[in-house]
């Protein structure tokens, strides 16, 4: 048996727990695409603010 079961004695991660087990049906995302989406989303909102909020304020 692999030692990974014993390696994590009394270790709990944060509030959300992730296990090694994964289902083949799970939709997998690349971490890069998540970060890229976050950046693009932030920039989009910034642009919306810059373009359309000037008149309102």
């Amino acid at each position, binding site marked *: 048996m692999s030692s990974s079961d014993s390696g*994590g004695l009394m270790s*709990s991660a944060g*509030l*959300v727990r992730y296990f*090694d087990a*994964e289902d083949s049906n*799970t939709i997998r995302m690349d971490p890069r695409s*998540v970060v890229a*989406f976050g950046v693009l989303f932030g920039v989009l909102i910034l642009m919306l603010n810059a373009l359309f*909020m000037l008149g309102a304020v």
Partner: protein
Amino acid sequence: MSWKDTAEPVLVRMPAVRRPEGHVPFKRKLAWTAGVLVLYFFLTNVMLFGLDIGSDSAPLGRFSSILASGQGSIMQLGIGPIVTASIVLQLLGGADLLGLDTQNNPRDQILYQGLQKLLVLVMIFLTGLPMVFAGGFLPPTSVNLFGMSLSAGATSWLIFAQIAVGGVLILYMDEIISKWGVGSGIGLFIIAGVSQQLIGGLFAHPIFGSPQGELGFFPTWFQIITGNIPIGPVLQADGLQELLIGEGQIIALLTTILIFVVVVYAESVRVEIPLSNARVKGARGRFPVKLIYASVLPMILVRALQANIQFLGRILVSQTGQNGVISLFGMELPWLGVYSISQGSPANPTGGLFYYLSPIYAPQDWMWWAYSTQDALNVLLRVGVDLTFMVIGGAIFAIFWVETTDMGPEATAQQIHNSGMQIPGFRQNVGVVEKVLERYIPQVTVIGGALVGLLAVMANMLGTVGGVSGTGLLLTVSITYKLYEEIAEEQLMEMHPMMRQMFG
């Protein structure tokens, strides 16, 4: 057919971040962690599109720093939905209603992961919708999109869409850090928020662009010493009070340092159970049952519960209240809650049930002799309620936490047994190890939980530098400590590739 079979098709399909194949070098891990952290800071500074910025409101007040949420930004929700989902999961798991064996059964582990995500999504709606539509926390402004002006309702939906995307993003940012980086994302976001406040509380000065010209601890003292801030005679009650809890903030500084010291000390308080390997003679180990290891994170759940109660009160009063008194079915119910009015909208509870249930955040909330806002009896009652809530709540959630995260006697005994260890002088048997652990783990957990609750309330009562709450400070110190341990372990593995095989 159990709920598992019904929910399985949905739960296994919840999107997840890909796991790295093979070993990720430590430098790469640090890069991921830093990158996500930068993204988080960037997003907390992007203001919501369509929000009326002029009217300020602080719904969760001091609590928002623990929730790592940026007021009015697309990170408005912060880790709130994750925390609330975790409360539900803890309660279900603690009452053994889930029936998931996350320790041995991979199928159940997958279901648990999916359930976590689904609950977070549900909570994004449950906390986000009232925040936008009911409490008046995020007032919409008039928006002119390509010459077409949007109604207030449509703008509100736009605001909700943005905070919902922010909530989902923070969930996946946490997953990236957990799988590709160091530590846990949530922990990191909490310490980022609290440290920011702490640094602000120490050094804030208009030179650094502090809002409303607030002064931090050191600039204030500079002003006091140079005589720019008048302090009464120091040897009389007024001047002394001003130095200790007023402008001088001496008590706040001492409390902050005290919490640091107590947590770092308490991290090392543990009961050690000796272990020896059944086959390899001389291979010995110790299993530490730590005093506060399991109890600091559950504290956030207790605080979140309190904050949600206050949130409910705010919604009730803003939807039904007249003159700041909650009224239901046309009847005024002052026993439920009376709120002070600021700028035409209800602000803080000053009487009734919601007043007694509101946690104490600062010395001003309870020192009735110095800040005469309430009479002594009311204040003492409120302190009593807060203390009881935190101490008992802390203990209960610590127990649930230990059970649901597989740190209880049964799960731990299984792990020790599987690694081929036994307690010297006892038979090599899971049941025996469990019996021994049962003598320590439950007691230590309850004492730890109650102690942490007590510390958090005490720190809030005495005040902390920068107004970081006691819970925030406790969380920050213990998360940082754990992060340090994890980084040390990582570096050990980097230096000795053999270690990797040992730790897996």
